[in-house]
């Protein structure tokens, strides 16, 4: 029982790390540019498809993901130049419409190229086993790799946001956008970099889950919504908030799904508990979001911009 709990907690953290990778870029885009971008989940999907394609081409998952990273970076920059750049000073409604259109375009393009059926990416040989953590608790090596890579990325982002000039501009931009541009900073280039990096992080997350999840055209949509939940809980514009919220959401979702029915079994008859558990578990993160909104409408780590 304890082992199962630890195992599921690790799964939750691993899921949370993925959410963080997608949310990190998006929360900056919301915070710094005040842009609502619905198409961010699509970049996660594209990352997965590109990794699958490059891995098949080269016969190696590692090469696959190494090639997918610059590719998603370039796609992110291209999208910024072609579309998003023209949306910064538009109404939120226009942003919603254009990025919604972008999702339709990219989802369908992926379907045309790769078909609607899910793709599977073979697990790289070196990471296909599992590692003994403690006692008789074993955990898949590849999932540990995901956690490690995610934590390393989080650390890198932390250093970048807090100890570089780019990071300083980002932090300032999240709270005082007009001031940053008044300082004569090349805001266009700053935005382009944020966008490219955000796209690459989302693509990285997509690539890393490709071997453990099926790669399908809808995968971007479901992660996008959870990413929104993460950003709302963490506070728009806060990378630190996104990290904490992502781990919380990952844990609540994973543990809720596995232990919810079990806990309910003590209260209800088994059939009802199973049904109820299955129904309530997916809603837990939204209930969590509602609770945070009720207590602190700007999120746990709001960057000071407040509700915009």
């Amino acid at each position, binding site marked *: 029982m304890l082992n199962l709990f630890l195992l599921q907690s690790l799964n939750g953290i691993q899921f949370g790390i993925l959410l963080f990778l997608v949310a990190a870029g998006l929360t900056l885009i919301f915070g710094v540019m005040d842009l609502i971008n619905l198409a961010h989940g699509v970049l996660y999907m594209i990352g997965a498809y590109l990794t699958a394609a490059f891995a098949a081409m080269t016969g190696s998952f590692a090469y696959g993901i190494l090639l997918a990273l610059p590719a998603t970076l370039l796609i992110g920059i291209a999208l910024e130049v072609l579309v998003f750049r023209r949306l910064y000073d538009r109404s939120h*409604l226009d942003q919603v419409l254009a990025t919604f259109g972008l999702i339709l375009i990219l989802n369908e393009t992926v379907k045309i190229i790769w078909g609607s059926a899910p793709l599977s990416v073979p697990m790289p040989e070196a990471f296909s086993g599992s590692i003994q953590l403690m006692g008789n608790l074993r955990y898949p090596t590849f999932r540990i790799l995901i956690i490690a890579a995610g934590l390393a990325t989080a650390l890198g982002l932390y250093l970048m946001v807090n100890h570089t000039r780019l990071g300083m501009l980002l932090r300032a931009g999240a709270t005082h956008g007009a001031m940053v541009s008044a300082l004569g900073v090349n805001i266009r280039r700053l935005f382009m970099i944020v966008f490219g990096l955000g796209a690459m992080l989302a693509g990285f997350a997509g690539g890393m889950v490709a071997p453990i999840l099926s790669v399908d055209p809808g995968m971007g949509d479901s992660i996008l*919504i959870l990413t929104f939940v993460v950003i*709302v809980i963490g506070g728009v514009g806060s990378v630190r908030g996104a990290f904490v919220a992502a781990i919380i959401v990952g844990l609540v979702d994973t543990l809720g799904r596995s232990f919810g029915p079990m806990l309910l079994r003590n209260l209800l008859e088994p059939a009802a508990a199973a049904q109820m558990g299955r129904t309530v578990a997916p809603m837990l993160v*939204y209930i969590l979001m509602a609770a945070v909104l009720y207590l602190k409408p700007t999120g746990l780590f709001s960057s000071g911009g407040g509700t915009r």
Partner: protein
Amino acid sequence: MSEAVTPATTSIMETTAERQPLLSRLAPWLVFGLFAAVPLLAHAINDSFILVIATRMLIFALAALSLNLIMGYGALVSFGHAAYIGIGAYAVGILSSYGINDLLLQIAAALVVAGLFALVTGYLSLRTSGVYFIMITLAFGQMAFFFMVSLSAFGGDDGMSLSGRSTLLGADLLADNLALFYGVLIILAAAFLLMRTLVASRFGRVLRGTRDNPTRMRAIGFSPFAFQLTAYVIAGMIAAVAGVLLANQVQFVSPAYMTWARSGELIVMVVLGGMGTLLGPIIGATVFILLEDVLAHFSEHWKLGLGLILVLVVLGSRDGMSGLARRLRGGSDA
């Protein structure tokens, strides 16, 4: 975008609030008259499918009309409106699985559940604004979606087929497609009149004022929150009625009705036809369903075309899609 004033003529002095161009007074008669004549056309060219498509147009027009109350008159971009269509549809599905087939009871249940869901989620979402509001309505809509997906007792992901259409006071009135069509048309007309009344009322005036300048409204003594929440609840309830009708038409209920893509399409319908105008959402839904039908004939990837149109139109016109829609209508209701 006030209805009372028609800026197209304000360059000419002394326009009264009452005087409206003849065309805009006749337009509702024209639209509803054309719809009323659709069965004649279907009969004349002997194509019953036209009636099915037209009914679908009317149902989505009702949903778009409700979204327009909060989006067009309240400047609240809700990305979770499809959830209410789903609530209405499941009110029919779930009640009929317990043998309750009466339309009025089903509508009553849909109104109550949708109203409560809107009250709770609206209360939380309206504490925020802008980007937050869009994200949160989207998340709550998705919550409703996942709830139905996991509710395997009522079909879960696969949805549930209905054994037949709802009855009205025991009579099997809606079984016939023609009767259903006119039933839906009457409900839409009633909703249109209700909307026109609401928008012009004290309540509607506060809502419109808040859309244009919330600070000003507070400065003259209004607290916008309660008005926005009320509008949010009314909009959700009307959309649920659309869901009841949709379930009846298709005789099938599934979580697919409440996906966030469907919410996005509702937004597109409203903007396409003209946000903050009474007739706009009806025209927008009609055009959208028509486009969907025509494009789907060309290619299974018709959404690619829709996406391209959306992106190009928003990027191509300075004032966005609503501006383009306005120019297409030839008006200039600022």
